């Protein structure tokens, strides 16, 4: 079984700071991580590989430094890493991203064998769009299972997959055919500790590095900023509310009573509303 996992190297956005005056992002010194959602996808892929044999190829599009994340994926046990890097990819929105990644997956398929499953995380923590998975599937003509909470069964002979997919009011149990694309939901598994042997292998591993041309991109104008139908016109900080919170003064009475008094003063209807919603006495 050949499984391709698309991962993204993202800034650890918990540590990003915005410059208070210029409203620009201060990236300097911000560490990068593998998009946390992608780790659930990677683990799901590794489990299938361990069960059925075969190979896991991790693929990322990013700057040359994204190699770090690929090496980290190798330490968890991925078999091969492919870095798609080219200045033509810069500034890609989701549509342009899916064009580049789909092209690279075709190349992976020609070079290392056709994948049975392509995995992605549910979304990234910097883009948050959840669009790249469905976009890749569409471009490659793959069936898609998004928001997968659990892979119930894969039958490599019958070429079928059965999975539980999160939907608004419950869980849909779906069965479809391989090859397909799966986006994994968070907290579906726990990424393994890499074995020592994998860490050593990862350190020495040759990362397959492709430019747009190497990957077989036919139309460079479909990549990067040029290939992106969406345009970021304006970036700005959320406006501050004009007035600050009214601070409750509880010097003369118990804080709980003072707070409740303030609430009922501000919203006279609140007390009546609370009486209708309240229960549990």
């Amino acid at each position, binding site marked *: 079984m050949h499984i391709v996992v698309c991962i993204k190297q993202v800034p650890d956005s918990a540590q990003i700071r915005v410059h208070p005056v210029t409203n620009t992002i201060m990236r300097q010194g911000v560490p990068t991580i593998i998009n946390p959602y992608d780790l659930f996808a990677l683990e799901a892929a590794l489990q299938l590989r361990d069960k059925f044999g075969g190979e896991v190829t991790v693929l990322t599009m990013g700057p040359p430094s994204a190699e770090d994340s690929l090496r980290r994926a190798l330490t968890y046990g991925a078999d091969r890493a492919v870095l798609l890097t080219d200045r033509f990819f810069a500034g*890609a929105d989701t549509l342009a991203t899916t064009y580049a990644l789909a092209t690279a997956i075709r190349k992976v398929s020609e070079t290392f064998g056709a994948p049975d499953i392509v995995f992605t995380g549910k979304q990234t923590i910097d*883009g948050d*769009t*959840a669009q790249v998975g469905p976009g890749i599937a569409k471009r490659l003509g793959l069936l898609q299972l998004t928001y997968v909470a659990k892979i119930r069964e894969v039958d490599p002979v019958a070429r079928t997959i059965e999975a539980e997919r999160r939907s608004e009011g419950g869980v849909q149990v779906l069965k479809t055919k391989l090859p397909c694309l799966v986006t994994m939901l968070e907290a579906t598994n726990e990424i393994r500790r890499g074995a020592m042997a994998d860490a050593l292998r990862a350190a020495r591993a040759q990362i397959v590095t492709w430019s747009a041309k190497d990957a077989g991109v036919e139309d460079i104008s479909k990549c990067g*900023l040029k290939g992106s139908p969406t345009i970021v016109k304006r970036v700005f900080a959320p406006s501050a*509310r004009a007035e600050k*919170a009214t*601070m409750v003064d*509880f010097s003369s009475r118990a804080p709980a009573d003072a707070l409740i008094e303030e609430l009922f003063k501000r919203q006279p209807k609140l*007390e009546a509303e609370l009486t209708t919603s309240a229960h549990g006495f």
Partner: protein
Amino acid sequence: MSEPTKAPPAAAGRAATKKELPEHFKAYKHVWVFIEQERGQVHPVSWELMGAGRKLADKLKVDLAAVVIGPPGEAVQHAAAESFCYGADLAYIVADGVLTDYRNEAYTKALTDVVNTFKPEILLLGATTLGRDLAGSVATTLLTGLTADCTELDVDADGSLAATRPTFGGSLLCTIYTLNYRPQMATVRPRVMPMPDRVEKPASRIIEHKLGLVEEDIVTKVLSFIPDRDSAKSNLAYADIVVAGGLGLGSPENFQLVKGLAAVLGADFGCSRPLVQKGWVTSDRQIGQTGKTIRPKLYIAAGISGAIQHRVGVEGADLIVAINTDKNAPIFDFAHVGIVTDAIRLLPALTEAFRARLSPHSRDRIAS
């Protein structure tokens, strides 16, 4: 390399300029809202989007249409009829037995076909699990732009859709355009837009469109559906009162204090993200950018600092109350009422005080 990491305007390439719209896009008019319904139930986000869509359509002086996709029968007809009460000028229906359960293949074809036939200028969907699954496939099929999880939608002077969404992990907002492609697509999360008033109105123009797929064409099969057990399900997004706790509570045991207050107020409870990451609270209770957006009448935040990612999830609340030991905590910048004190001590006292105020005895007093 997704939307938000794109270079700011100065650095944007030639794509940033609005060209004369290509000839084949000139026929694209009108604003559409995809009416999401699953198992006969319309997702409220669809009506919220109708409210937003109505404003866009009025500004553009075009029609607002609802698109309803599903199995033939009463539910779909009812959803279409309801859309008129929420502001639709017309409704498109694609009804077919193969659309009984949501499946990407069939729904993508249905929506793509109606778009190609009737050509909307703007297409809005809810950023739900269904809406995001569908929107991504449809936008890629149509090779158009899609802006996810918008917090604001507007039409600018030259009639383009200006879609604003959080970027850089929520620290900033950005306004995104899809100038030279049609339709302009956007998704919006539940509860970000206010629910419009429902005004009784008869259904008028309904246009039915054939799907042209048979079950054999669809590879994916639905084996079963396991509904969420009602008791476990949180209805956070639609709760009138929400009490939430953050890292300031210090331990999972102390989080019980939040639940205690919520119980007395008949409220739902939620939390900030670190509590989910620590495993103290389940992820369906997380409020904020990567959790749920809420719009309660009353929101009480205990031991929550008020980071921007949390703030974007609660800004729609009518009354925000913050309990925090740090008088400089950012939450006081957007809360309406603040109290600088230890939440671990205040929560039990508050629970008791509310219990006393709201007890049947005092209820009688209010009634008389």
